[in-house]
């Protein structure tokens, strides 16, 4: 037995096993790469080689000439990544503090609004930066904000975002009361494709680009959800918020806005069983 050569054309085990494996692979490949593509209805292949390349998953420039349909409105040009803002920079915060003087009329002296405009103190850096960019490009429109950002440079927006993120999160001017967290906030509605608000906006999980909502004005929150639902606001990337808001009932929109407005920082975390 020790003299039996395995890797030899005389060894039946070798020829049999290799031959059978190759035969099965060849037949399977013939089916997968040639015959089955031929049976596809509606597919147009130039030749057999085209079929094989397509079945292999080769990425090639498309031969189909279909016009690229562009939206008839400005979409957001900001690419949101966890690294988009870079490390915290004290010089940037200082510059932001100076620039922020022009925001105080509506957003409060320390980023805490007394009107129904959003509080910015402690707001995530990415959220402030993205909204400023979107106002400037016209992806988001506002009679008040749009004219105020036209002269802001990219660095100005980064500085403002750094400054507002640096400010401490204080309780808003909205009465806090013990209201139980609505189900839409904690659990969403699985069968309507609505994830929990807290899954992106903090408390359960924070996803880059989402805004901090606790203590915001209920009027503002409700107006934004309604704007997303009707499509008058559409600077959310890939319709993330529009798809959610459209599926929410008016009662759920009101409940979520009311609930968030009443919360001091971290209250939603407690409601979700987190500290």
């Amino acid at each position, binding site marked *: *037995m020790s003299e*039996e050569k395995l890797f030899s054309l005389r060894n039946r085990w070798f020829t049999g*096993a290799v031959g059978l494996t190759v035969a099965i692979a060849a037949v399977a490949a013939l089916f997968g790469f040639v015959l089955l593509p031929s049976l596809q209805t509606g597919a147009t292949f130039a030749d057999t080689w085209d079929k094989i390349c397509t*079945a292999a998953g080769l990425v090639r420039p498309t031969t189909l000439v279909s016009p690229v349909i562009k939206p008839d409105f400005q979409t957001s040009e900001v690419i949101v990544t966890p690294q988009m803002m870079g490390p915290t920079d004290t010089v940037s915060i200082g510059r932001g503090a100076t620039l922020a003087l022009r925001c105080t009329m509506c957003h409060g002296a320390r980023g805490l609004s007394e009107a129904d405009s959003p509080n910015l103190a402690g707001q995530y850096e990415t959220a402030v930066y993205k909204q400023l960019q979107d106002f400037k490009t016209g992806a988001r429109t506002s009679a008040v904000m749009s004219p105020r950002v036209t002269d802001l440079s990219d660095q100005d927006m980064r500085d403002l975002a750094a400054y507002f993120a640096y400010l401490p999160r204080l309780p808003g001017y909205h009465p806090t009361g013990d209201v139980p967290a609505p*189900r839409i906030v904690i659990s969403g509605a699985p069968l309507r494709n609505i994830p929990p608000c807290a899954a992106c906006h903090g408390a359960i999980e924070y996803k880059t680009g989402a805004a901090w909502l606790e203590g915001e004005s209920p009027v503002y929150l409700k107006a934004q959800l309604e704007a997303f639902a009707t499509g008058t606001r559409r600077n959310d990337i890939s319709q993330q918020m529009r798809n959610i808001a459209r599926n929410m009932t008016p009662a759920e929109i009101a409940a979520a806005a009311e609930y968030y407005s009443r919360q001091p920082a971290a209250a939603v975390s407690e409601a979700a069983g987190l500290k």
Partner: protein
Amino acid sequence: MLHNKKLILAHFWLAFGGFGFALLLGEWQMYIRSPLHAWLGNPELYYRSVTAHGTTMAYVLPTLVAMGFGYAITEAALKRPLIGRKWAWAGLGLVLAGTIVAIIPVSLGLASVLYTFYPPMVGNPFYYIGVVMVVVGSWIWVALTVINLHAWKRDNPGAPVPLAMYANTAGALLWAWTAVGAAIELLFQIIPAALGLTTTIDAGLARVFFSWTLHAIVYFWLFPAYIAYYTIVPRAIGGRLFSDPMARISFSLFLVVAMPIGVHHLFADPQVGAGFKFLHSAFTALVSLPTLLTVFTICASVEIAGRLRGGKGALGWLKVLPWDNPLMLAVAFSFVMLGFGGAGGLINMSYQLDSSIHNTQWVTGHFHLIFGGAIVIMYFAIAYDLWPHLTGRALTSFRLMRAQLWTWFVGMIVLTFPWHYVGILGMPRRMAFYDYTDPAMAGEAASVMMSVLGGAILVVSEILFFTVLIRGHRAPRVEAGEYRFSVATHEPHSVPAALNGFGLWVSLMLGLTIINYGFPIAHLMALRDTSVPVVRVGGAK
């Protein structure tokens, strides 16, 4: 004769300890997602639990059982002490350390990415580093298995390798190669991202690498069970192994076709071409061949036992089988679950049919039935068979053992059959809660509750299992004698070179890997702009 009893026992206890803990997590998951419990306020807790359950059950339990049982086979089949005893302890230490390193970030909620990793989600680096340590620890076992076999062959030129050792080495070689896919994914893609060295990841490529590991790992889990079918069951029930070469062919075939078929897990992934999906589907169909050969051979071996006990007629031998023997019961239950699981698997492996159940609870039901059912019940059987030889004390609680196997079988059926059913109805898997108040899902509530009951039966079975083993440790000392394996009807005196070594089969495995994975991997690596930003989990709240 087993020389390193403590080493083997340590592997088994560590494996079963992890198993005991992860089983409770599994039942908790079933319960909180069922209509019996209100929605979980924090779904992250569910994903944290699934990560711990999956990592322990898929990586720690089977790896340690394969290692411990493997060392037992190496000593008992080759009839000599293990070479590299210190290395074996080091391997075990690495698996234990890796498990602890991985489980800490998981417990803290810093790596709730599930055991399938799911890039571009990226968790705490220590989770992945821990998993790598477990794998590296098991590679020490692979090396020792090969070294011991090589040394034995050198001392016994031309002699047929004992079947148990042949199978054990086939399993080790399969694991060595199949773990490479996930190792590449972890070392070159996920760990650099987890450490913050990279900020993007090619998730499509990562999934292809993981699929390299993902299917053959199932066969690595399955090897100890199959070794037990062939080399323990016929001896334990007083029969003979029907065919020794058939057993060798089955194990060799697993080596060839278990690995290059993983893309059948990616049927819904756009980054792999349809042609390759079909190719993998075709080879997946082939992997049923060694299983069918095994079912035939083992049924024939069991029939020999029945006839030796005086069974007559076409089915008369079934009645006289030693049904009070736990090993007999275990193999029967295992085959029933393997049959149902395998039949369900035909749906998963078919490129077209898969789309009706892809990512539904059907898939969860399928692998729990095959792994948790058919395979793990044989792990119990192996433990029952080996324990007296490891502890020097007899296991005498036969009633308890039978009750344990019965409850495991019934529990697993009650758990997985409703899962298959709700899967067909479209219930997605791996969700923290379901809205059973919605008319679209209300009909699934009863089935889900049935699964919770099945899980509870499994917990009872687990308690019985530990009771049997612990009672065994407290029994009076007895001499267990030599640990023997089944004898074949025709003992091999000479074996063809192809069935006495692995050169041919490993070459075919590598060749098929190149055919089935070479182009998709090379193509995806060559594509530019396919990486996406990493999504960090367990970060800011």
